[in-house]
């Protein structure tokens, strides 16, 4: 837990904000982990908000996140100014696993599932893995981080209304050819998208899904955030998204 000063805060698309704050000391992290952020010091909004780490800045001097302003808490967050201090827990959870021998990875993001792909793309390319990003949005006016991802490799964009990139869904890009070229996929986005990706990839490409669930504590203590998984013994049980996730291997997730 740390109180960290806001360095940058700006709108990057309709109701989508980019926020950078100083990193906690000795930042240790993996892409796909999340920050658990208090939106007020008062008690009217008690629960922290989980937001994915999007990009580590400089020599681990800052952390950037991208978030959608939707409910009451993110509205309060939006009102914070540069110089204000954020109460942040984390990075928390289990991030994406990087595989040394991979040569080509597909990064699949939908809406507010796109942010974690940026730091992931950075680390993968540093490891010599070629990345192709396939990202989807409702519409052009809420599209985010397209340029950022382009710095790491090809970016294929789908929008529901066709206002940017192809009209349709991210899965529309997943041709057999593309899948055959890929060693791994990493996906984060709304549940219907993740389910479709899981199906499409099954038996073809191994990969990871990053899940979303409402959280209490964010550290594994309250059992709020469970999701159905295939357990080690083959039975179906609950795993905690905050502690055992948010990233799960695609094969273990039961939708």
């Amino acid at each position, binding site marked *: 837990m740390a109180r960290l000063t806001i360095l940058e805060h700006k709108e990057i698309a309709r109701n989508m904000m980019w926020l950078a704050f100083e990193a906690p000391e000795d930042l240790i992290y993996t892409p796909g982990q999340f920050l658990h952020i208090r939106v007020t010091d008062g008690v*009217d909004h*008690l*629960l922290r908000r989980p937001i994915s780490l999007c990009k580590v800045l400089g020599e681990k001097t800052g952390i950037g996140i991208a978030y959608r302003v939707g409910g009451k808490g993110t509205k309060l967050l939006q009102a914070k100014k540069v110089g204000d201090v954020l109460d942040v827990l984390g990075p928390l959870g289990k991030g994406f696993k990087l595989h040394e021998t991979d040569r080509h990875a597909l990064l699949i993001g939908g809406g507010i599932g796109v942010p974690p792909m940026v730091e992931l793309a950075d680390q993968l390319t540093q490891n010599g893995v070629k990345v192709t990003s396939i990202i989807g949005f409702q519409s052009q006016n809420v599209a985010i981080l397209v340029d950022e991802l382009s710095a790491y490799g090809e970016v294929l964009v789908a929008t529901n209304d066709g206002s940017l990139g192809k009209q349709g869904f991210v899965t529309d890009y997943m041709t057999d050819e593309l899948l055959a070229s890929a060693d791994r996929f990493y996906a984060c986005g709304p549940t219907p998208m993740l389910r479709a990706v899981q199906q499409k990839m099954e038996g073809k490409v191994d990969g990871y899904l990053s899940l979303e669930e409402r*959280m209490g504590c964010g550290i594994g203590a*309250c*059992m709020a955030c469970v999701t159905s998984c295939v357990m080690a013994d083959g039975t179906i049980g*609950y795993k905690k998204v905050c502690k055992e996730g948010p990233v799960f291997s695609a094969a273990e997730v039961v939708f």
Partner: protein
Amino acid sequence: MKANVDLAVEIGSLKLKNPVMTASGCFAFGKEFADYYDLSTLGAITVKATTLEPRLGNPTPRVAETPGGMLNAIGLQNPGVEKVIAEELPHLRKYDIPVIVNIAGTTVEDYVAVTERLMDSEDVDAIEVNISCPNVKCGGIQFGTDPEQAAHVTREVKRVSKVPVIVKLSPNVTDIVEMARAVEAAGADAISLINTLVGMSIDLNKKKPLIANGVGGLSGPAVKPVAVRMTYQVAQAVNIPLIGMGGIMTGEDAIEFMMAGAAAVAVGTANFVNPLACPEIIEGIREFCEQNGVERVRDLQGAAWKEMAR
């Protein structure tokens, strides 16, 4: 300076080095918080409700935020008493603090069986009987609202327990004093109060309750006035010690419960907001005592009604 304030309290035969314990279900089995601080700092640790058989709990969403509080309907997810004894409790022995195991069940026999099983473990210093789970689908609620049933389950658990038995009351009753008197008469060694208030939040977009279970248990600062009131009333009506809880976020909140008559306090929801809540609350209690010339924190117990009686 610091050494001067005596923070020790007693809950019957349990000796606590300070009055702050964890509230059941808000601290799992402690492991997660051990990453943040040394659990020996605590007065005691109360672990998550344990049932005879493993329970999966409720579907998600299981929590929702409300003004000054939160709702939860976890549904008693736990690995069952066998696994709790084998895998969860032993690691707590290394901390120099009493371990209290919260138990739940659907029938009186369940409660008895869990208690019997726990008696085989060396790692259990007290039993907290959760007769107050507000989740309508889990058992236990009938015990929490009917004094006779509450007395019955207390008596039966007491019969098989070799360690102190704490009964945790539900606030969702017309007469909390009647409930407290019933479990005292049935042999309870101490009373915890309050469990959560039954509440609901509705998702205006989906036009249905936000929590999958429909209703959930309300906790956090919002409920503190209700909890303080019940502590104040019950403390004057029974002779067994009380563990007060409900919305404690700061040392001053803890002092408020002690002045209302609690011998010790438990911290629940605050742990989710701030993993360091318990040690900070202990420090806050110490500071309050220092600033107010209180030498023994236990002297504050019941100060509010002792003062009113003058």
